[in-house]
């Protein structure tokens, strides 16, 4: 999202920058003081001032250092920028804007406050604009407007991509040329047959036989060529989309988590699946047809002109009319069917609504009412559908008639020509055939712009991902190391968004084999610390050292293979338990797997299932409980004998008894393995070598359980609070059976 718009000349004239003053952020504010829409009003933030300029008038001119409070207040369908200053401690409205700019101004407000505090860091927004700020076109999930950005065009990239399939393209071109030639030759053969043999007294049975044979031969060749061409196009399209899909998938894997988390999961899925399929469809349907149509049309016109240019003009005169008719007709059809689709959608969602709310409908006894409601929806849909079908059925013949008007003209004047002996009957027949051949592709060609635009949209989305630079990747001197397990945070600062630090100046040194419990209220940055250790994100400032080396100097793959991770929600892939456990170590033996499962207290429940370790889990498989899932995840993590173990609420879904058992097992396992554990249930962390309490982006307390309890600080408060909550829950638990 652009946070620095170009300030138009008029507004620029209202603003004289001081020495060394430069515009840092600029956004339109498109509602004026009277609540009218405007293009004249701008919010400008320089490294010294905040200005609101309307036309060539400066409405507000505040020194950043005077601002004590600055906030973007999102209201209903518009937003306000509100400030307090040193001089005036009441909230005042600085600017007003539509939803187009609400998020932009919110970012700019944060940026202005950073500038005020002397922090140079430029706030950037990874959000995408919904429409292009320059041309107003809707952006379909790309950062820059493909029309307004001056990057090498997507089409050019696509051509370069096609370069890899030169051989295929050449063969397809030759095939298409052959098809065109044969299509031109068939009417010629007919003409010769009619003129030379089909006249009384000219030909005999033999000639008719030869003609029929020739026609069959040519037709078979045409069919074969067509099949070959389609086959080539389909294989090329499939190959291309497969290649694109693999490239995209590889890229998505490389990109950092933040890129993926900025997007809805369905969106990336669409790009990998649907957009590449769109490319394939284009190659199959449009690409092959496009060139054969052009070749056929051009050669037909040349041939026709050679035969009789006057007649050619007459037959072509109706082309624009036919085209116009076809286009306007299609628009109408599109409208009608869009309407039908709209009703269909409404009916569908109405049905879904009622079916999924059936319990409520039944319990409130409103079946009658809902039936009426649904009947109205289906009635509407049926009416529209009926109207459309009748329309389609009655109008289609009319359109064909208009499209074919040129034929009647040619037939009349051609016929006159035959009577006047300017043509032979065969030539007339040949000419009429060519005219038909001209009209056929024309109708098809009107669909082409739509197909090309669809292709471009898909390509834009594909290249939007392809052009993204991964934030985290191995640099050239990255090393493979065997971990000892020492972790050190050195002045680490990090935030998911550039203006919101989650961790500030964290310093912590962890010895190999130490178990660290991370404690703090939710949202304080415990999981963030773990994300940094897992290297899912890169620190903004400071250093994270692993065995004394900067984490960025380690090869990612090797590093990841030596850490084990158990999260609160553990994803199991569709497959057997056996395969899921082997995920991190594909060459693990059965014995190793059983050992790991035993340690995770999972062996017993696995063996109890009918298929044991071969039990299929995943979407349509055996459904595991939360606790079972967690135990499998623990087994998966420890199978590889990691040097660094990360447990983020790893035992939260377990009952106290199995948690205790796993704790005991883990204790044995984690000897010599550096462990970071987060647990909401603080009793889980009692045995940690050190507890680290995080509060307000900082490390607040460090020590063992006993030390921190004596200190009576935050940790002490958390423990006592939890005990009280438990006591309260205990009372509730007793109260319920008594009441029931």
């Amino acid at each position, binding site marked *: 999202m652009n946070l620095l718009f170009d300030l138009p000349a008029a507004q620029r004239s209202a603003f004289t920058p001081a020495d060394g003053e430069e515009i840092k952020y600029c956004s339109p504010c498109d509602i004026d003081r009277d609540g009218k829409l405007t293009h004249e009003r701008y919010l400008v933030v320089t490294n010294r001032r905040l200005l609101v300029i309307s036309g060539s008038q400066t409405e507000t001119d505040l020194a950043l250092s005077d601002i004590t409070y600055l906030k973007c207040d999102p209201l*209903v369908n518009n937003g306000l920028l*509100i400030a307090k200053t040193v001089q005036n401690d009441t909230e005042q409205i600085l600017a007003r804007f539509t939803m187009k700019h609400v998020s932009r101004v919110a970012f700019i407000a944060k940026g202005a406050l950073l500038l005020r505090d002397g922090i140079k860091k430029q706030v950037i927004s990874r959000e995408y604009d919904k429409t292009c700020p320059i041309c107003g076109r809707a952006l379909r999930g790309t950062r820059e407007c493909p029309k307004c950005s001056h990057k090498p065009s997507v089409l050019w990239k696509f051509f370069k991509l096609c370069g890899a399939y030169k051989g295929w393209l050449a063969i397809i071109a030759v095939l298409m040329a052959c098809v065109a030639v044969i299509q031109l030759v068939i009417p010629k053969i007919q003409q010769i047959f009619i003129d030379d043999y089909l006249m009384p007294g000219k030909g005999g049975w033999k000639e008719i036989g030869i003609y029929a044979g020739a026609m069959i031969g040519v037709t078979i060749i045409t069919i074969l060529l067509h099949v070959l061409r389609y086959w080539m196009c389909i294989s090329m399209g499939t190959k291309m989309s497969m290649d694109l899909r693999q490239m995209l998938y590889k890229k998505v894997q490389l990109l950092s988590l933040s890129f993926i988390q900025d997007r809805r999961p369905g969106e990336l899925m669409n790009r990998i699946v649907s957009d590449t399929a769109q490319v394939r469809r284009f190659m199959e349907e449009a690409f092959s047809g496009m060139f054969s149509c052009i070749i056929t049309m051009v050669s037909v016109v040349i041939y026709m002109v050679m035969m009789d240019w006057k007649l050619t003009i007459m037959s072509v005169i109706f082309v624009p009319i036919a085209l116009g008719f076809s286009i306007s007709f299609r628009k109408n059809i599109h409208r009608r069917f869009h309407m039908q689709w709209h009703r269909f959608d409404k009916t569908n969602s109405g049905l879904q609504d009622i079916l999924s709310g059936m319990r409520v409908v039944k319990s409130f006894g409103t079946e009658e009412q809902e039936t009426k409601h649904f009947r109205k929806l289906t009635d509407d849909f049926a009416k529209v559908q009926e109207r459309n079908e009748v329309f389609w059925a009655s109008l289609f013949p009319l359109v064909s008639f208009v499209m074919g008007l040129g034929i009647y003209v040619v037939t009349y004047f051609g016929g006159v020509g035959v009577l006047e002996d300017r043509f032979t009957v065969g030539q007339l027949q040949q000419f009429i055939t060519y005219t038909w051949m001209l009209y056929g592709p024309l109708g098809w060609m009107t669909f082409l712009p739509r197909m090309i635009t669809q292709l471009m949209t898909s390509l834009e989305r594909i290249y939007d991902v392809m052009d993204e630079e991964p934030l985290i990747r191995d640099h050239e001197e990255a090393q493979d190391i065997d971990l000892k397990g020492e972790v050190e945070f050195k002045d680490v600062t990090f935030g998911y968004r550039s203006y919101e630090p989650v961790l500030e100046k964290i310093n912590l040194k962890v010895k190999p084999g130490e178990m660290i419990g991370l404690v703090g209220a939710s949202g304080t940055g415990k999981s963030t610390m773990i994300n940094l250790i897992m290297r899912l994100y890169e620190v903004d400032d400071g250093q994270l050292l692993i065995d004394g080396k900067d984490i960025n100097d380690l090869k990612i793959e090797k590093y990841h293979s030596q850490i084990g991770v158990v999260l609160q929600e553990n994803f199991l892939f569709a497959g057997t338990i056996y395969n899921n456990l082997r995920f991190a170590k594909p060459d693990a033996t059965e014995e190793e797997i059983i050992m790991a499962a035993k340690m995770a207290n999972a062996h017993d429940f696995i063996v109890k299932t009918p298929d044991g370790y071969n039990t299929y889990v995943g979407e349509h498989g055996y459904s595991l409980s939360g606790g079972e899932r967690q135990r499998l995840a623990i087994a998966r993590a420890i199978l590889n004998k990691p040097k660094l173990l990360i447990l983020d609420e790893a035992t939260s879904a377990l009952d106290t008894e199995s948690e205790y058992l796993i704790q005991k097992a883990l204790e044995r396992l984690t000897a010599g393995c550096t462990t970071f554990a987060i647990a909401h249930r603080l009793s889980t962390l009692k045995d940690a070598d050190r507890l680290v309490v995080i509060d307000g982006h900082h490390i607040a307390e460090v020590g063992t359980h006993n030390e921190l309890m004596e200190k009576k600080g935050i940790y002490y408060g958390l423990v006592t609070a939890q005990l009280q909550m438990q006591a309260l829950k205990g009372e509730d638990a007793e109260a319920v059976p008594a009441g029931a």
Partner: protein
Amino acid sequence: MGLKNFEGADEEFNLEQMEAETEEMLRMRFLSDTNAKFERTAGGFVSLDIPEGEDGKAEHYDRVRVVRSFPFTAPNTYISIRTTEEKSKEIGIIRDIAKDVSKETRKMLEEQMSLRYFTPVITKINDIKEEYGHAYWDVVTTEGPCKFVIYMNSSSVVSLTDVRLMISDLDGNRFEIPDYTQLSAGELKKLDLFL
């Protein structure tokens, strides 16, 4: 529940406070000229004084939010007056700004509501162009001419009543057509795709 309630071991888990919060949640206080005084602030907002508030204590709010309970169907009744912080709390409700407050106050509150709700009313449709799944509108509204883009799906144009339409654009702005039957035949034709 925040950490602060749990500081100190000797402190009882605060049941009383929760009771009080429940009370507050259920409270319904109606505001009118007799018990509340609204005033414009220098910054363009409205402040509120309640001389005899809860337990007879005077209450003062530097700035209040003026929120409609039924923005579409009853814009002038059941106006909720709220505090401005993020977890905005209700101070009171005005049953009907036409009856319960003075003309002056009413004007003040209406100004605040027109700040909060920005829904230009479409008075003229110049053009609606459809292109590949989006519709580009070029209209004149009560707040000036405007161009916007909507998705071509059923949730972009919603009928509030048989004749009243609410249109939402890609960015989340809203536009209203109070009675589409009042539009000219040409405009209706452009619109009929969405009806």
